[in-house]
């Protein structure tokens, strides 16, 4: 089973102090550490597990700056067979649509049975690349995937729904799976595997190798930290009293 895994190198902002830069459209990244996007590491692990079960090859693809090659080397160390970096510096501003279009161009000559992506990236949180890529390729997709089993060229996929429900789908291949975190336990790259991956070639492609007509579907206007709100008012009393007061507040604020 030949697989493609899309990987993004993202800043680790969960516990860091995030500040907006001078452009107002990006964050200050100087003192942040970067790593593989969390959901992508689950997608990669799932691909490795599928490969361990059924054989085949894994190609890791990342649209990123030269530093993204470090992230791709971790993917190689964990079990990917080859890696491609699409030069971010060649393609300017991106959104989910343009990213998917560039990935489609980059993988057009690669034979695959499935593409795995993370369900979202922790920096942009667009949730778009997986489904958009599938639409562009004209193949089925599933999002928020929490289980993948493959047999007889069919995939049996679980999707996590609200309210604790699980949806079980049978899907034809090739397909795109946008993987949910928690689907597996991502392994650590062993030191010897890192050492070996350090010497492997990463294919780098840019505007000379791929062209895309894709335009941005959306442009970033502003990035801001929302102002701290005033303290919430807790309404007490009988349901009638609370609903009456709620209606008054809504009218006072001019919301209706």
């Amino acid at each position: 089973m030949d697989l493609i895994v899309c990987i993004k190198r993202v800043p680790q902002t969960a516990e860091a102090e995030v500040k907006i830069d001078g452009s107002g459209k990006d964050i200050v990244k100087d003192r942040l550490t970067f790593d593989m996007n969390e959901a992508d590491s689950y997608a990669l692990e799932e691909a490795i597990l599928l490969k361990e079960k059924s054989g085949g090859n894994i190609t890791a693809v990342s649209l990123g700056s030269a530093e993204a090659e470090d992230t791709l080397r971790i993917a190689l160390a964990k079990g990917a067979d080859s890696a491609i970096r699409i030069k971010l510096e060649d393609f300017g501003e991106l959104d989910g649509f343009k990213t998917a279009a560039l990935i489609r161009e980059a993988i057009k000559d690669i034979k695959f049975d499935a593409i795995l992506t993370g369900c979202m990236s922790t920096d942009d949180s667009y949730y778009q690349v997986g489904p958009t890529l599938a639409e562009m390729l004209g193949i089925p997709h599933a999002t928020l995937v929490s289980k993948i089993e493959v047999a007889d060229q069919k995939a049996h996929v679980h999707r996590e729904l609200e309210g604790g429900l699980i949806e079980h789908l049978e899907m034809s291949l090739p397909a795109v799976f946008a993987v949910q975190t928690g689907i597996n336990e991502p392994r650590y790259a062993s030191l010897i595997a890192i050492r070996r991956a350090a010497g492997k070639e990463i294919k780098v492609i840019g505007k000379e190798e791929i062209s895309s007509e894709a335009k941005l579907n959306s442009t970033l206007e502003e990035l801001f930290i929302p102002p701290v709100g005033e303290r919430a008012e807790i309404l007490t009393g009988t349901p009638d009293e609370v609903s009456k007061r709620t209606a008054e507040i809504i009218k006072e604020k001019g919301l209706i």
Partner: protein
Amino acid sequence: MGLFDMSSEQKLIRTEVRKFTSAVLEPVASDLEKEGRVPSEIIKKLAQMGLFGLTISEEYGGSGLDALSLCVALQELSKSCASVAMVVAVNNCLVAYPLAKYGSDELKKDYLKLLPDGGTGGYVPCSDLEVAGKECSLDFEADSRHVSGKLDIVLNGASADFFVIPVKSGNCTTQYIVNRDTPGLNLFPVQTMGMRAAGVAGLEFQRSELKEDQCLIGQDDGLAAIQSVRDYACIAFSAIALGLAEAALEASVKYSKERKQFGRPICAFPMVQNMLAEMKIRMEKSRLLVYEAASTFDSGEDYAMKARVAFLTSGEGSVFAGLDAIQIHGGYGYTKDYPVERYFRDAKTLQALGGVSADIKSKIAEEILQ
């Protein structure tokens, strides 16, 4: 461009080990202290990651990495749990290195090969082997291959599968390998101030037989070889101290930004800023010396002096960092609610286990005065 920019490979090692330590070690570091040893499930994970055989050649199942990579990994391990870093350092430097360099093919096959898969070797340090008393080396009984006596401090003792012990042979100091199940050998626990999970133990021998083929460093190589191994370990211990200093500084920066006094975070006060700056200066000095010593070792040049200077500087830096971190944390600093008291205890213990400062300084002076 820095003086010691890491290779891409070393940066990846740092990132991956950091991820491993924050997920696997950090949440349990305090519990490991209570247990007094590194449990087998964590040893298994460390081995799977390749940390136990980091510097061992691929021929013997290791990762074949250099001393600088070892230092990068130890620094990260130490930031989460210095005891675990200690176990890894002892395995790589004090056990695997002499086995690879001086051990017979049989010893390499029987013992070196065990280490990458999670086997652990214990090591008996002593402050000055030339005047070593009975507490840190054993003597053969007259006309016999039997030894009796106590070795009070054995690094990695609690979990070791075998031990590297010093034995006096005439006027020479040699080193032997003994199995944990050697007849007449008993282990006894040793309570330490810090590094409590590193499993420091003691050994007692009652007429235990040491076979000739278990000799690791014989009379020909002798004390000089043992000293060169200890100098190599100094580099690794320096990296552990550096990790402790970094952890103490990070904790202090975080706490001083959060903790408010008189309406301001305490990091706004000059006295606190002075402590933070001093910690940073010592840490950066140590970093350069540790990486310089490791790079010198990797280049094959004489590394003894640089290793000793690195150890004294980073050891002292980490103790200061631990003390200042406790001070910055105020009343919380000496409680178990914050990790800084552990950083201090580990730093002070490491400083002692690595060798007596006065001895190391006299060796430095001897060399300068030659």
